[in-house]
Structure formats: C-alpha cells, structure tokens
C-alpha cells in the first residue's frame, strides 16, 4: 500500500504520481469493463431476471470517471428502450417494435410497427429521484406510460392514450392497427407483472370486468348522462336506469355501466365495462362506438379517466 497524499502533489515522487494515475485509469477501465458486461447481459440474456437487473443498473450507470471518459455514449434512459424491446422479444413480441439507433448523436428511439411512421418513442427521465421514466412520443410530446424499475411499477396515462389513439391517430390508421399498438403496451405490462411482479395500472386499456374507470369529476352532472341518453337513443341503444346509476347494453354480451361507486364501494363516478370473456376495455369501446367516442371527447374535462396522480 502506497501512502500518498493526493491533495498535495508536491509530496509525491514521480513514480508515485504515475502509480496514482495508473490506478485511476485502471479503475476507469474496470468501470468500462463492467459496463460492457452489463451491455452483454442486456442484449443477450434469455433470463428476464438478468435482463431487468442489467437495465436497472445501466439506467443509473456512470460510465465516465475522472481519468477515463467515453466519447460515444447512450442516454441512461435509452437502456429502458433496449430493456423494453428485449422483454417483448422474450415474450415473442419482438416483431411488434423496431429499435433505431441514431449514430450521429448516439441515442435510441423506438417505433411501434403497427403505427407505421406515426410515432417515435423514447424514454425520458421523470426526475423523481427514484429512477422513474416516461415513455414519450417525440412527435407530440405525449407520455403514454410511466415506468419505474426500482419501485416495480408501470402506470398507463389515460389522457395520452386518448389524445394519440382516439384523436390524433384515429383517422390516420385502421382500428386494428390502433388496437395492436395498445395491445403491445398491454403485453409489456403483462410481462412486467408476470416476470417481475410489477404493479401495473392499465387504466382505460384494462379489460377486466371489475376495473372501475374513474371519471375526472367526482360529481357527475345529470346533464352529461342526459346527453348520453339522447345520443344513445338516436343510435337505437337505450340507456337504462340502474340502481347505482345507468347501464347501456351495447351488445348481448357487452354492458357499459355508469356507476356512483368504485369497486370497493367508495363514492366516485366512473364506468365499468363488462363482457363474459373480459376482453373489452373502455378504450376498445371508444374505438368501436362513435357516439360514445363523441360523448367522451365532448365532455372530456369531466369524463377523462383518472390516471395515477402521483406520476401524471
């Protein structure tokens, strides 16, 4: 062990300085070595646990040290994109997205195949000190979901899903393409749930019958329901009186309920969508029924489905 006072170079001999320099470079290279191992792991592993471990470490990795810096580097958030692509690949959905590397300024973007050229996605830091990131469309700035590997959570953003898939893309793309794009987000969330026990809020994409889609307003006006009543009637659907609000039978096995209580019985206004196979979400209903889409969008300030307000 060399006893060197690094704060006072005058105390060092030349060989001492060289040793000190060399150690610092070694240290920097070791960090680089560690980085490439993590990259190998991120790119090649077939084990989901190793994949998430690599992504998590890389997302906060400081590659540069005082003596060794690397001119070509990706953003920390870019590793989330690799992670997402790889995880989908491990779940046989690799074809559904393409990862693009931009060599000029060294960053990654992702495109969802079903959307064609419409969306260019990347992760951006949520700056929440817990390593949270937003999955953002670079074209519109809309953030589709929030992801946090450390806290093992994913939150779908209802407002962005509505803006992009119900409004912006609606007249540019076929319904089945919109659905396969959102199915991809669901597949990603399901994989996070299944492989790592993530807590995932699918929000308006959730197809389960007991999912309560809570409206923005906690005090729904009768007038808004009246509007739906009249609009439904002109499409030959009858909005019926229900003990806890109103119910609309859209098909023999598809009911839309407006209720004044959530799934745990708390007072709140919102929707339930129920079908036997539990394959229909509020989002799918919006895509399928123009009069409901119109009603939802015209009263969006009150009806917007609530997203997790801690991250959106």
């Amino acid at each position, binding site marked *: 062990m060399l006893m060197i006072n690094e704060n006072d170079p005058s105390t060092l001999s030349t060989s001492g300085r060289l040793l000190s320099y060399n150690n610092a470079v070694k240290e920097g290279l070791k960090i680089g070595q560690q980085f490439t191992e993590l990259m190998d792991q991120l790119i090649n592993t077939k084990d989901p646990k190793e994949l998430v471990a690599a992504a998590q470490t890389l997302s906060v990795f400081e590659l540069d040290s005082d003596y060794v810096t690397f001119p070509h580097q990706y953003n920390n958030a870019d590793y989330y994109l690799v992670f997402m692509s790889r995880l989908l690949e491990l779940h046989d959905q690799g074809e559904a997205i393409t990862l693009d590397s931009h060599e000029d300024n060294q960053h990654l973007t992702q495109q969802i195949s079903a959307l064609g050229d419409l969306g260019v996605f990347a992760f951006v830091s949520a700056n929440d000190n817990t390593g949270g990131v937003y999955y953002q469309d670079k074209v519109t700035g809309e953030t589709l979901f929030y992801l946090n590997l450390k806290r093992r959570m994913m939150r779908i953003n209802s407002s962005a899903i509505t803006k992009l898939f119900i409004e912006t893309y609606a007249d540019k793309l076929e319904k089945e393409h919109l659905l396969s794009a959102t199915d991809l987000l669901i597949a990603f969330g399901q994989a996070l749930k299944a492989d790592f026990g993530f807590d995932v809020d699918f929000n308006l994409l959730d197809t389960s019958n007991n999912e309560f889609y809570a409206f923005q307003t906690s005090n729904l006006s*009768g*007038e808004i*329901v*009246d*509007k*739906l*009543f*009249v609009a439904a*009637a002109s499409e030959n659907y*009858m*909005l*019926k*009186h229900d003990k806890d609000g*109103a119910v609309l039978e859209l098909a023999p096995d598809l009911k839309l309920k407006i209720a004044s209580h959530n799934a745990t019985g708390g007072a709140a206004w919102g929707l339930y969508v129920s079908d036997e196979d539990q394959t229909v979400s509020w989002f799918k209903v919006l895509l399928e029924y123009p009069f409901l889409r119109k009603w939802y969008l015209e009263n969006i300030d009150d009806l917007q489905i609530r997203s997790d307000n801690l991250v959106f």
Partner: protein
Amino acid sequence: MPNNNEETNQEVTPGQAQLDSSLTQKIKYLQTLQSALHEHDDRQIYELIDKPRYDREVKKSRSTTKTQNLADLVANDHEQLSHYLSENLIDYLGKTYPFFYYDEVRNGEFDIYFGNWWDRRKFGKLDVLNVAFEFDETEYGKLKRSFELDALNQRYNTDNIAEISANSAQLQKLIDGQDERDHQKETLRQQLKEVSQKSTLPWDSGKVKEERQTIVDQLSKLADDDEEAINANKKIKENDEKILSLSKEDTILTYEKQSIQQRFEDFSHFESHNQSLYTDYLTSLIGKGQVNVDD
C-alpha cells in the same frame, strides 16, 4: 246479585233484535274477511271492501239492493290491506303493463314509474284498493299528445326545438357578422366626419342634420348588434341546454309510446284496458283463492 238466568231475559225488544242482527252481520263480515286473508283469497277481500262495486262490475248484477256498508269497519286498516293486496296485484299488472314499475313510498302507498330507462318519469300512483292507476295529469297529457303528434310524424317538442335552434342560428350569424359590422362602422364614422365637415350654410343645415341622424341611427343599430353578439355565446349555450332537456323529454316520450304500442297497439286500447282493470283483475282471481289454499 246479577241475574244470569236466561229465562228472565226472554223478553227481546225489536230494537235489541236489530242490534243483535247488526252485530252478527259485522262479526260475520269480519270473520269472512279474516278467513279470506288467511286463505289468501284476494278476490273475496276485494268483494268485501267494496261490495256494491264488485256486484256491479264483476257480478254484473243489476239489482241495487242496499246493503249495510260494513266496509267502514276496516277503514282504519286500509294501509295494511293495500300493502297486502299489492303483492298479487303488482304481479298481475307486471304481465299486462310490463313497462310500469312501482315504488312503495309509504306502507301500502305506491308511486308508478314509467319504464326502466335513464331518468324515467314518475307517472302517478297506484290505487291498490280500487285497482286503479292515478296517473299524473301533466305527464299523462304529454304522452297522449305524443300519440296525436305521431300521426303528423312529429315529436312532442319538435316545434319548440326548431324554434330554439333557429334562434341559435340567428345568434351565430350575429357572431359571425362581427367583422362585417366593424367594417360598416368604420365606413359610417368616415361618412359622419365628412358630413360634419360640410359647409353649414343655413339653407343646408336641415338636410345635413337629417343625414347625420341617419348615420347615427345606423351606427347605434350596429352597436346594438355588437352588444347582442357579445352575449350570444352564452345564449347559444343556454339554448343548447334547453334543447338537450327537450330532446331528453322527447326520447322518454318516444320510449313510453313504443312501450304502449308494443303491448296495446295504440293509446285507445291502453285507455280501455285501464278502465276495465278492476273487472279484469277480479275476474282473473275467481277460483284462485281456493287454488292457493290447496298449494
């Protein structure tokens, strides 16, 4: 010492005999009513609580024999009777009037709701003891009117909605005409300036004054329009709200109309059914009381 010996009471005055017979009748009446209740013989209960009507409308008997009005004996029990009788009656009504729903607001007292759609109307009350609907006159009148308008292919509020929509269109025009008015005002102000600068020779002054006034009047008319345009958006919104509530009423009336058409074809059949409800219901009960007891 009280005398209990019947022998000594042989002497019965006609008054006593009448009282005795009257009491016997009452006891018999109440006993019959009680056993009808035990046997769930609703028909008999109805007969007992309004014998004259029963004789007239169910038995179709023409005789108008005066019977003592014993039904008063149970006048205090109407609430309970009504509650009890409602069960079978509402069951029966469910088949004939599948679109009516009942809410027991107090013991034996029922509100009628028309339909199971959103914000269905409270349509009146069910008079269980008299087997009759007491429809809310206003609501009933609207429904009747919608049937009349049906022939003209119109809905109850068609004219009203058209009028309000026309008003909104007018207001929208006023909003859209703002640029045009601004332009006109500019021109008129210019003209006013020119007129003011004209030589004011005494013999011209009347004419100039007149010209000025015309321009001022035009400007003030435009200012009025401007002001109306400022409030127009608010008014259009109010109109939209009115139209919504009228459309909602039309939708409800359409559903009511369809319900009646599906069951009775037209309004007159519905009305005649309502009128013969007492006879129809009680006739349907004949023989039923006994059957239930056998169950």
